[in-house]
């Protein structure tokens, strides 16, 4: 006799917005409970202290706040860069490499063309950053479009090509010193001047413009529409007369260029240095998760980026306050929370039906 399974999963057709928000809120609350427990058992501080330390490390004073704004802007910039590619269902896992490529080109121009007059120097830095990052984005796209090469793995490998290339210049420039330090220490050639009293403003300004621009590009332009159609079905796109290859390559070029802007702003406007571990700092990978969670909506990306940075900077601050509590805990905290938020997608897309009494009687 066949028995209905205890749990039956069915796809949902849709869900009211409040329910969607509720599910995510529950996921975040559960995750934060786990985080608080984790911190309690490892650092030995109470839930209240944990949250207040986190809050302090993120918004506590103007220095912390400035860092929070900068890193949120950086993460958001990369997530925004990924949005067009993801909407096209092109798995650009190479943002880390594309940011590094942009940063590296900037640094190379800073070091070797430092004696150019300032406006021209900035221009050359900017253009070469965009160009190199675009190449990093276009290369996988060309092979995907022409030959169907798997873009996930291609872009992943390109990350490490960029990382090793950056390491190459890093070690070359640092010589026998223990670390590279700032580039052009004496001349400060290529350092972006302050804008509205802070050099961070450049990235912030760029991100605000890009976030709005990409939003409109994806939702209101012909290009954006083409990207959506290619993402839904390549065949449909071909029948509709859309040149899939052109769209693929063009979209990845845009993705690469925006990553390049991020790399440029980081190196010229903030770090004044380059390193494979901090210039992109793993944000290229985190941004993939941010962009995916936001479902290509750049507005949601702002919120999610801020939340991720809150977790990261907040946990680092706990590590500063409590000795013996390592800063790498921020990775655990981000991972934990993201697992819950990602997992909650299931309850948004699927419905769970438990076996009812009625079914039992029928069986």
């Amino acid at each position: 006799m066949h028995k209905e399974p205890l749990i039956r999963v069915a796809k949902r057709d849709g869900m009211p917005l409040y329910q969607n928000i509720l599910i995510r809120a529950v996921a975040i609350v559960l995750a934060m409970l786990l985080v608080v427990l984790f911190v309690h058992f490892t650092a030995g501080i109470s839930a209240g202290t944990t949250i207040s330390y986190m809050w302090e490390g993120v918004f506590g004073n103007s220095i912390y706040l400035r860092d929070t704004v900068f890193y949120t802007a950086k993460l958001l910039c990369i997530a925004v860069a990924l949005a067009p590619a993801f909407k096209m269902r092109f798995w650009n896992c190479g943002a880390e490499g594309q940011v590094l490529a942009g940063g590296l080109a900037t640094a190379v121009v800073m070091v070797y063309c430092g004696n150019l007059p300032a406006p021209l120097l900035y221009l050359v830095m900017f253009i070469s950053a965009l160009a190199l990052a675009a190449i990093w984005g276009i290369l996988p796209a060309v092979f995907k479009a022409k030959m169907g090469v798997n873009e996930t793995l291609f872009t992943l490998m390109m990350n490490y090509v960029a990382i090793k290339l950056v390491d190459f210049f890093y070690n070359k420039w640092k010589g026998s010193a223990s670390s590279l330090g700032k580039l052009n220490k004496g001349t400060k050639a290529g350092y972006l001047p302050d804008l509205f009293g802070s050099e961070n403003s450049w990235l912030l300004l760029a991100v605000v413009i890009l976030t709005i621009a990409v939003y409109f590009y994806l939702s209101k332009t012909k290009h954006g529409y083409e990207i959506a159609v290619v993402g839904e079905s390549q065949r449909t796109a071909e029948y509709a007369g859309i040149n899939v290859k052109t769209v693929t390559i063009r979209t990845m070029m845009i993705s690469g260029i925006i990553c390049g802007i991020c790399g440029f702003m980081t190196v010229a406007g903030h770090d004044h240095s380059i390193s494979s571990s901090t210039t992109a700092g793993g944000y290229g990978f985190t941004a993939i998760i941010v962009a995916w969670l936001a479902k290509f909506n750049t507005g949601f990306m702002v919120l999610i980026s801020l939340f991720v940075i809150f977790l990261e900077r907040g946990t680092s601050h706990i590590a500063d306050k409590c000795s013996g509590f390592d800063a790498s805990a921020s990775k655990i905290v981000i991972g934990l929370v993201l697992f819950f938020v990602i997992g909650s997608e299931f309850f948004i897309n699927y419905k769970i039906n438990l076996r009812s009494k009625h079914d039992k009687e029928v069986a």
Partner: protein
Amino acid sequence: MATLIGWIVRAVVFGSVVMYGAMGEILTEKAGHLNLGTPGIMCTGGAFGFAAAYAYENAVDNPNFLVCILVAVGTAFLAGALAGLIYCFLTATLLVNQNVVGLTLTIFGVGVGKFFGTYVIPEGAVSTKAVFANKVFIAKIPGLSGLGIVGELLFSYGFMIYLAIVLAIVVHLFLSRTRVGLNLRAVGENPATADAAGINVTKYKYCAIMIGSGITGLGGVLYVLDYGNGTWATASGDAIEALAWLSVALVIFVRWNTLRAIWGSYLFGLCYWAYNYVPTLIGVNVSTELAQMLPYIVTIVILILGCTHMKQENQGPAYLGQSYFREDR
């Protein structure tokens, strides 16, 4: 000659770490799951495997050779398998996107490895060493390793290196010659058809991914206790992460065949360590970073060639990267 031998020996040990990761990833991918969490899994395995061995030898007066192996390898396997369980639950049961879950697992796993690894390190220091476990893991084959060049090339490694080769053969035979292996491949090629044929898709996925992740975890413990001279440092986590991406690359390089992974991984090792030995060998200076870039570039080339020149059987599983929801048919 000594340089050449030194190079090969180093490459083999390095390659074996990559090989463990690749074997785990191949098993996972054969079930149709692209696990980008490999670096996280390897890091977790390495950290806990090391911590267990370290705790064991410090707790016992006369640590036993065999128990040390069991403790280290067992813990690493278990830690890896548990990390794999998180991935598997989210992707196979909750049907969430595999790339996203994998990348999150990498962030999480590297964090877990580094965080709990630091507990072992005494306060103020940046590293600590498991002396006895290191001895166990690099113990050469007595007698045979003394046979001149042959002895050094073939018999001078720790047991994990030979275990890797045995595992590669076993996994290959399992996938190509057994009914269960055939079923597993069917799950990766077309889960709907496999399901219709009466194969329990979910069970196969859980088993393949968890065992695969456990094997990946072994790579981590090999890294710390043999390749890394038994030392766990605050930077070990990041080093394992960078190395584990090579495992993901190796899977493509060897076209999902664990037998090819044996020489493929050693070749990666030779590329990676070229900078240290080639200068003295032929007098040409090789840039460290550019030589280390080589494995990644070769993988890209193979990836491209794979789409134009390779036979069907050399392609990856058809359903790789896609979730399987039964009612989607």
